[in-house]
């Protein structure tokens, strides 16, 4: 239990309305988008300014108290689970867009700004913020930076790290330090590049300078319908191999198509084995030629039908299906969890077949909706959390899929992060020397290990046996 005097000092910094400590109010904070495990913090602190974040951290530093940063809580790897960290620091009140520099394609936003607000703020100028996670109506810039989030259009435009030029970071000591900034090429180590993707273990990002890009002049958005996932995956490999760089190349399998169609009724073919959403963008000239080549590849792979969005409304409808696919999954089962492994793009057909085999072997339903062009799979494992045996099978199946991703030359996670979820799998990918280098790096920013402890690394104290009882798993 935190001493009452500490909570009082925190309250003095953020005001009474910035403290959440009633048990029923804390329930909201007991998990993020990863629901397999839950634990509530003792107190949630909601600072309003970067200076308040710094002051809160100074209070915690004085007593050596650990903390967990939290943005919008849409993370899918349990990054906000407060393990060994009684204090959660939420950024929801750090919601200001501070400056917009249209001429230089820059924007400065506080950490709690919602991803979608950034694009909304600059669209009138023909600009946008390229990283577009499907959770963009909710997720925060701070969370995006912590996870180095991606999204459908990152195939062409890159992920968060390619668009963050500077951050202000509140170190666990409370010190606010500005790294990078609006001007590129500052001499010295790329500390900004290291903070992006650090999953909140270096401190709390309070504001960021982001790069904006021009909204493409034109799009060709195609929906290619296939009889099987296999055929669709062959088309994905074929399109990449042909040297076409689509803006997005997304796959949805039958389970997803059916759920999406039931939810949104846009006329998707519910008997299809899989559909591919292919978007090509850029200046108008040449788009038709690229689309024709992609179409030819799909035909070779045995496409059943190709629909082309005729106008912006049709395009928006297709994207709505894709971006809300996760939400639609709620219709299929009470609970789901999503894996986020990556394989070299040419191995997409293999991993998709493997997922089907794993599902059959573990008697599970697994739906697939993913960033096929990047080789970034998102098998959605459906379950009912009241069925303990099914939950155990979900965990085993998830691990098998990740093992296969690594065996195929890939990675454990393409955009959701390690969090608590994949801590045990880290040694599949990295050897002891690699992990030592990472922990050295962490100590540069957080020598006491108080920022989001027990994430990413399989630390000695939290070995597999003791880990589960330490947290209050939902099951």
């Amino acid at each position, binding site marked *: 239990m935190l001493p009452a005097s500490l909570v009082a000092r925190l309250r003095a910094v953020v005001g009474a309305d910035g403290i959440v400590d009633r048990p029923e109010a804390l329930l909201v904070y007991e998990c993020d988008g990863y629901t397999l495990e839950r634990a509530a913090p003792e107190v949630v602190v909601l600072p309003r300014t970067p200076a308040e974040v710094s002051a809160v951290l100074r209070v915690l530093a004085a007593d050596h108290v650990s903390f967990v940063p939290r943005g919008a809580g849409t993370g899918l790897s349990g990054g906000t689970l407060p393990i060994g960290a009684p204090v959660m620091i939420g950024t929801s009140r750090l919601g200001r867009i501070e400056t917009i520099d249209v001429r230089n394609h820059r924007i400065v936003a506080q950490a709690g700004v919602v991803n979608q607000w950034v694009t909304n703020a600059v669209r009138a100028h023909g600009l946008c913020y390229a990283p577009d996670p499907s959770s963009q109506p909710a997720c925060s810039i701070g969370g995006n930076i912590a996870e*180095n989030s991606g999204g459908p259009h990152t195939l062409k435009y890159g992920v968060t790290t390619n668009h963050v030029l500077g951050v202000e970071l509140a170190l666990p000591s409370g010190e606010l*330090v500005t790294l990078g900034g609006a001007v590129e090429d500052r*001499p010295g180590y790329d500390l900004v590049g290291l903070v992006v993707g650090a999953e909140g273990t270096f401190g709390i990002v309070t504001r960021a300078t982001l790069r904006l890009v021009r909204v493409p002049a034109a799009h060709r958005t195609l929906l290619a319908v296939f009889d099987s996932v296999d055929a669709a995956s062959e088309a994905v490999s074929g399109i990449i191999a042909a040297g*076409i760089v689509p803006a997005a190349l997304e796959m949805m399998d039958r389970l997803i198509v059916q759920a999406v169609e039931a939810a949104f009724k846009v006329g998707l073919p519910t008997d299809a084995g899989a559909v591919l959403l292919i978007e090509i963008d850029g200046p108008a000239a040449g788009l038709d030629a690229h689309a024709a080549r992609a179409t030819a590849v799909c035909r070779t792979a045995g496409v059943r039908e190709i629909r082309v969005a005729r106008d912006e409304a049709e395009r928006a409808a297709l994207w709505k299906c894709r971006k809300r696919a996760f939400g639609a999954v709620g219709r299929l089962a009470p609970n789901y969890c999503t894996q986020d492994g990556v394989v*070299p*793009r*040419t191995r997409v057909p293999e991993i998709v077949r493997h997922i089907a085999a794993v599902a059959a072997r573990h008697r599970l339903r697994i739906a697939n909706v993913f960033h096929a062009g990047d080789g970034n799979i998102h098998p959605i494992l459906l379950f009912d959390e009241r069925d303990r045996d099914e939950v155990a099978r979900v965990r085993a199946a998830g691990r098998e899929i990740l093992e296969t991703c690594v065996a195929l030359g890939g990675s454990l996670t393409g955009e959701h992060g390690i969090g608590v979820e994949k801590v045990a799998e880290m040694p599949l*990918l990295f050897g002891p020397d690699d992990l030592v280098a990472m922990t050295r790096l962490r100590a540069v920013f957080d020598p006491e290990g108080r920022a989001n402890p027990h994430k990413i690394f399989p630390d000695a104290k939290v070995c597999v046996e003791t880990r589960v009882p330490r947290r209050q798993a939902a099951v």
Partner: protein
Amino acid sequence: MTDWAALVGPTWVASGGAADAVDGVVPARVVRPGSLAEVQTVVRAVAEHRQALVASGRGAHLDMGAPPARLDVLLRLDRLTRVVDHQAADMTVTVEAGCPLAALGAALGSAGQWLSLDPPRPEETTVGGLVAANLSGPLRASQGGVRDLLIGLRVVNADGAVVAGGGRVVKNVAGYDLPKLHVGALGSVGVIVEATFKVRPRPPVEEAVVVACGTAREAAETALVLRDSDAAPLWLQVAGAGGLPEGPGEGAAAVVGLGGIAEEVADARACVERVGASLGLRTLFVTDGAALRARLGAFAVEPAAAVLRAATLPSEVGSVMERLAATARERQTVVRCLADAATGVVRAALTEVLAVGPLVKTVRPDLERHGGTLVVERAVPDAKVGVDVWGDPGPGLRLMRSLKAAFDPGGIFSPGRYVGSL
């Protein structure tokens, strides 16, 4: 004393000479390991004897950074030249640190692909140097820099252990992004032995248009109009008066590279011509865009007493170029400037050694006040005397110091060459 010949074979050890000097500091030995294991052995030996090494490829970019505080071993990686794995259909390539970019380019070119980074001197620039010195060329405007294309790295650390970061897939957030630690670090935290990159299809057609302008400021303004036009530039440079090395144009100009399939390039060219006409500027079409790009990129390494690199916001490029030129005039000397309009990086070449220090001292404070930076990117040793080549790395310096201490506690990797005398 280390018996280097026993470690790497007698053929691959030599006494250092004037030609091996790093900023005038001559290494006692030049050692050329032939395998990863030999690199590890050499690093361990250097660490054990508390010596200092500078890692290099073919030595093409050793004139960057501050002079080393100590130098015992010049570690040349030019025997590690293998293209380890080019998966054309995955659009990734893994390559050893000593492989020259020209050779890598040839291997990728046969599949219609390229590593879209175009630093000068591709025959002499190795992959390790590309990463360590964070080199780039005009393509950075649309393709990003090393940090955007590097997806995995293997490094020998100060203990002699091989540390891997990232991987071989294009999207990967497992663990910290360790490769970023080494980009532009000038080998101060480890010896890069292997790198994996994303590669891209090479545009089948590349052309260029020179838009002749009256002043650098006008050229920079024009470039921003082109940046925001449907020309979708592949690259976009601003030349100050006399900045364009040779070829078309003598005065200031915005020079735009156009790439893609034929109809895209034709359309883009028409767009540039429309922009030129609307601004009342003369345009000049260049068929071989890639050749012009290479010439512009070579500006960074052409013979000069020093090449300065000023970084600013794209909107300030013109005024920074004018300030550099005016300051040089006041000091009765000349600079030639070439800038990347998209990134805001301005390069200025100076011919007079004695002009370097005063120019830096005059221009830097003003740039830094506005959030910019000024680095002496390359210089002959004499021009670095008494000059702080890096300038202020900003408030992150304390973290950078502890980072260096964490990864190179004994100070064996390029001591003194990096920012803050790290």
